[in-house]
């Protein structure tokens, strides 16, 4: 009896893996179906469908980059404090004093790469017609994930709290002023009024809600930090789970045309 077989017969092993060695089609299917991570994937994929020249592996690379961002992001949180007193100096310290001073650089470049990978993934899905029925729902989930990726980039942009960050968010959040009805300079904003008291003002419109103030200040920094580190990654994780699961439910990766 080989060592591997001995291990495979222990109670510990058998409590974890509820199937035999994956050398039969049934056990291979069970290996995928009885694992929480693998079960999101199709049990079987067409050989032609997973060719690198067909998928570019851009979805997988995007997911890899999301994991990289999660790990480096959590590590950065051990040193970074989201207040106007400390934020900028903590970013400098992450480069100058903290061991392995490239952590923030990894996070930043990973973010740039992720936007690029998401874009290429979308282009690949479009060029191969993989958005067509029955996958049109998953295309929409993908559009939400694109939006979440861009929002993660946008909120992360403010955190270094340097001139570039403050002004980029000032310019970016000014767009919200022009939102119809709920932006104070947007069309229809003046319709929302009680008598001659306007309800949508610079101190109550959607931009105010986003920044928690009338301009980019301490409250905006804290708000963007929470969005960047907690709210948006949770939302992205949820939609990624749906996205991967739907690939399986919609018949796996589409075949070449």
């Amino acid at each position: 009896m080989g060592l591997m077989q001995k291990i495979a017969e222990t109670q510990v092993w058998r409590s974890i893996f509820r199937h035999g060695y994956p050398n039969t089609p049934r056990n291979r299917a069970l290996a995928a179906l009885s694992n929480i991570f693998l079960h999101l994937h199709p049990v079987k994929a067409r050989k032609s469908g997973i060719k690198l020249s067909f998928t570019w592996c851009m979805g997988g690379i995007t997911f890899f980059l999301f994991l990289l961002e999660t790990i480096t992001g959590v590590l950065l949180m051990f040193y970074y404090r989201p207040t106007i007193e400390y934020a900028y100096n903590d970013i400098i310290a992450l480069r100058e004093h903290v061991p392995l001073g490239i952590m923030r650089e990894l996070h930043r470049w990973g973010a740039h790469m992720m936007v690029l990978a998401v874009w290429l993934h979308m282009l690949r899905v479009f060029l191969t017609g993989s958005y067509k029925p029955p996958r049109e729902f998953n295309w929409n989930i993908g559009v939400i994930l694109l939006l979440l990726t861009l929002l993660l980039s946008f909120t992360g942009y403010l955190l270094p709290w340097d001139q570039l960050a403050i002004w980029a968010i000032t310019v970016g959040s000014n767009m919200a002023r022009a939102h119809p009805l709920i932006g104070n300079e947007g069309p229809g904003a003046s319709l929302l009024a009680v008598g001659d008291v306007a309800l949508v003002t610079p101190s109550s419109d959607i931009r105010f809600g986003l920044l928690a103030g009338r301009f980019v200040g301490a409250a905006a920094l804290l708000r963007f930090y929470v969005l960047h580190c907690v709210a948006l990654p949770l939302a992205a994780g949820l939609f990624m789970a749906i996205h991967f699961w739907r690939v399986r439910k919609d018949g796996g990766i589409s075949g070449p045309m």
Partner: protein
Amino acid sequence: MATSEASQQATYGNNPARDPNRRDPSRRKVMGTLVAGWGLFLLAAHAGLLGMVRYLFPNVLYEPPATFKAGPPSNYGLGVDETYKESYGTWLVRVESDPLSGRDGIPGMYALSTICTHLGCIPNWQPAANKFKCPCHGSGYRMSGMNFEGPAPRPLERWRIVLATDGQILVDKNQKYQWEKGQWISPEAYLKV
């Protein structure tokens, strides 16, 4: 499968353990209870959601107040004063004449917003060139606030400026006046000195 369900249904009515005096509530009553219950639940859930949205709009801001006093007008000479640029985002300008607001030949003061009308950066006052110049994309404004170069689509905004009872200048940033809406001619957009 169908037959076993049917036989279960049949024996259900003759269940010996069942109290023969028990009366089931009517279909209408069950529906009514369900509608009322779900209605209340959804109402409470939406009220909670609304409360959460309201929660995100703070009541107290740790920002400079929107109104401030800037001393008596006699403190200011002709030209642009940058005292309140950092603290209140305002340039106080004293001029002999302001034809753009219909005060040709009438000396006075106005309060200019320091927010570039292109994308919201803060321009710099350049005394030598006699203009405001935005470092972000190069928008330029005359001393009046009128845009004349770069991508700025409209002039700088002016704030309400009046004389307080104690003789000090009072600038009120809650009220803004835009040239392109013809608001600079408003009485409180210009302080006659």
